[in-house]
C-alpha cells in the first residue's frame, strides 16, 4: 500500500498512508474512532476508492478493481450475514460465485474448524452473537483469501466472549496461515492477537512494529499514550555520556539510552511506564541512590488506590507534575499512604525520549472502552 489518500469533501480520512503487510502475519491496525482505519480497510477491500495512491497484493495491483475481483475477504463489523440464507449457504456463497469444485467439502471443513457444524441448517437470526461472528469468519476464510480483513469483528460481543473469540481467532489464523488484517480500537485486543501493530491517528500511521517494541519504545506521544499509559516528563538535553543522554529536569537529571532519543532535538519528553517505577520511602539522593537507576526525589504521594494485582499511586513531583506509579502486589507490606514523602527510581533502559514539540496528551482517553 503506498501513498494512499482518501478524502471526503474537505475531510481527509486517510492521509498519505504507506505500509507493507508481511504475508502470513496477523496485522493489527490500531487507532481511536475516526482515525481512518476502517476507511483504509474498505479501500483494501475495494468498497471505497482511494482518492490517490495504489494498493498491491504481492506483485499485482488492485487499485481500481472491483471488490469481487480482489483476493480479499472481509469480516464486517456487524457481520452482514445474509438473513435469507442458512449458515451453510452463507459460507458457501463465495465459493459458488467462483464456481469452485468441492464446495461441500470445503464448506464442511471450515464449519468444523469454526465449530459450526451442528448449526449449518440455521438462519443467522437464530444464532447468538458469538455464533454469528464465527459464521462471518467462516464465510470469509473458506475462500482462502490472500488477505483477510477484520473490521472490529469483536466490537459487538461482551467482554468475556470477546476474550474467548480473540483466542479462537488467533488459533484459526495459525491453523489456516492466512494474512489477517485486523482493525480495532482496543489496544489490549491488538496486543494479544497481532504480530505487528500499526498505530493510526488522524489518517496517518504513527508507528508500526511488534507489540513489545511499540510498548517499550513508542516514538510519538500518541503511541505512548494510546498503547498503555505513560508518564511524560519535560526535560532539556544537557550532554552525552557514553551510551546515555543526560537530560535536565527542573530539579535533578535523568539518563536515557542514546538510541532512544530522537536526534537533533534539545527539548524532550522523557517517557516512563508507570509499572517500571519503584518507590522508596527514605529520601535517597541522586548520588547515593540505586546504581544505574534514574531517581526523582522529593515526591509526595497524593493518591493511592489498591486494586488487588497492584497498587496505583499518584506522586506529585517537586515541580508539580503528577506521575503515575503501579506497584506490583508481591505480598510485602510496602504500601505507601497519601502524604508520604517518596523517591521514585527507574532503570535508564526503561525510559524513552520523545520530541517535546508534540501534544503531550495526544492519545489519552481516546479509547471509548476505557471510559
Amino acid at each position, binding site marked *: 500500500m503506498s501513498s494512499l489518500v482518501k478524502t471526503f469533501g474537505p475531510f481527509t480520512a486517510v492521509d498519505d498512508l504507506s505500509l507493507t503487510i508481511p504475508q502470513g502475519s496477523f496485522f493489527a491496525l490500531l487507532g481511536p474512532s475516526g482515525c481512518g482505519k476502517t476507511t483504509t480497510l474498505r479501500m483494501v477491500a475495494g*468498497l471505497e476508492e482511494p482518492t490517490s495512491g495504489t494498493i498491491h497484493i504481492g506483485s499485482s495491483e488492485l487499485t481500481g478493481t*472491483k471488490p469481487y475481483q480482489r483476493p480479499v*475477504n472481509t469480516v*464486517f463489523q456487524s457481520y452482514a450475514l*445474509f438473513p435469507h440464507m442458512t449458515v451453510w449457504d452463507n459460507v458457501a*456463497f463465495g465459493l459458488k460465485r*467462483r464456481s469452485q469444485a468441492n464446495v461441500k467439502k470445503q464448506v464442511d471443513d471450515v464449519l468444523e474448524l469454526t465449530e459450526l457444524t451442528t448449526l449449518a441448517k440455521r438462519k443467522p*437470526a*437464530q444464532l447468538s452473537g458469538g455464533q454469528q461472528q464465527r459464521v462471518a469468519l467462516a464465510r470469509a476464510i473458506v*475462500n482462502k483469501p490472500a488477505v483477510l480483513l477484520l473490521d472490529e469483528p469483536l466490537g459487538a460481543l461482551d467482554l468475556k466472549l470477546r476474550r474467548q473469540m480473540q483466542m479462537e481467532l488467533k488459533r484459526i489464523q495459525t491453523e489456516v496461515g492466512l494474512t489477517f488484517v485486523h482493525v480495532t480500537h482496543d489496544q489490549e485486543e491488538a496486543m494479544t492477537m497481532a504480530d505487528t501493530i500499526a498505530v493510526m491517528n488522524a489518517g496517518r500511521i504513527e508507528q508500526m512494529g511488534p507489540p513489545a517494541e511499540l510498548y517499550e519504545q513508542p516514538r510519538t506521544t500518541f503511541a505512548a499514550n494510546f498503547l498503555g499509559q505513560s508518564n511524560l516528563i519535560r526535560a532539556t538535553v544537557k550532554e552525552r555520556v557514553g551510551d546515555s543522554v543526560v537530560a535536565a529536569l527542573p530539579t535533578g537529571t535523568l539518563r536515557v539510552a542514546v538510541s532512544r532519543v530522537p536526534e537533533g532535538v534539545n527539548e524532550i519528553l522523557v517517557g516512563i511506564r508507570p509499572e517500571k517505577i519503584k518507590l522508596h520511602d527514605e529520601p535517597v539522593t541522586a548520588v547515593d541512590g540505586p546504581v544505574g537507576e534514574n531517581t526523582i526525589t522529593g515526591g509526595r504521594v497524593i493518591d493511592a488506590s489498591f486494586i488487588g494485582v497492584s497498587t496505583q499511586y499518584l506522586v506529585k513531583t517537586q515541580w508539580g507534575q503528577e506521575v503515575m506509579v503501579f506497584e506490583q502486589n508481591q505480598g510485602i507490606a510496602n504500601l505507601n499512604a497519601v502524604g508520604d514523602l517518596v523517591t521514585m527510581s527507574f532503570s535508564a533502559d526503561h525510559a524513552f525520549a520523545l520530541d517535546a514539540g508534540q501534544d503531550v496528551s495526544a492519545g489519552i482517553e481516546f479509547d471509548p472502552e476505557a471510559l
Partner: protein
Amino acid sequence: MSASVATGRQTAQRRAPIRRRRRSPWAFVRDNIVWVAATLALIYLLLPNVIVVLFSFNKPNGRFNYTWQRFSLDAWKNPCGAPGMCKALGLSLKIGISATIVATILGTLLAFALGRYRFRGRSAVNLLIFLPMATPEVVMGSSLLTLFASRHVGLGFKTILVAHILFCLSYVVVTVKARIAGLDPRLEQAASDLYANEFQTFTRITLPLVAPGIAAGALLAFSLSFDDYIVTNFNASPSSTTFPMFVWGSAQRGTPVQINVIGTAMFVLAVTAVAIGQFVGRRRTR
C-alpha cells in the same frame, strides 16, 4: 434494570389481593380500558365482513338481499347465476392482474431509483409519487376523463387499465421503497466482497431481500384495483363493467346473493394468502 424489575414485582404482589376484593365489571373495564376500546373498534371493523359472509347464505324474498330470511346454499351452488356478474368479475380480475403487473414493475424500478440513489430532483420525484395518493379519487378520475375526452380516446378496458396502474403505482413505490430503505447496505458489500458481481449481488441478495416488499406492494395494488369504483366509473364504457360497477348497479336495481359469494370468496382467499405470507416470512427471517 434489575432493581426496577424487582420493585415492579413487589407492587404487583402488593396490589393483587386488593384487586381481587373488588372485582366489579367496571373495575375490569377501567383496568383494561385500552383493550375494551380496541375490541370495540375491531368489532366495528369486522361487523360488515361478517354480514357479507352471513348474507351469502341467505335466501332473500324479492330483489334485495338486505334482511335475513333463511339459510340457503343456492348462491354458492350457482355463483354465476346473477346475469352479467361473472363477466364483470372476469374483467375486474383481468384489469386487476394487468394493472398489478405493470404497476409493480414500474413502481419497483422507481423505488430502486429513489431508495438507492441521491440525485438532483429526487424530492420532486418523491412529491410526484406522493401527490396521487393525496388526490381525491373524483379528481383523479375526472381529470383522466377530460384528457381522454379531449384526445377522443374511446373509453373501455384500456382507459380503465391506465387509470388503475396510475393509482396503484404510488402505493407500490412507497411499499417497496420502505423495504429498500430497511436493507443493510453492508449485505450487498459483503456479497461483492465474496466474489458476486453486480448482477449476482442483485439477483441473489438484493432481490430476495426486497421481495417481501414487492409482494406486499403487488397485493396492495391488486386489492386497490379490484376494489375501485370511483375512478373506474369515470373511465369505463357501458360495455366495460367491472365488478364494483356491477355491485353499484345492483344496489339500485336489486342485489343478487352472488355478489356476497364473490365478496366472501375474495376475503377468504386474501386472508389465506396474507396468513401464508406471514408464516413464510417469519420462517425466512427466523
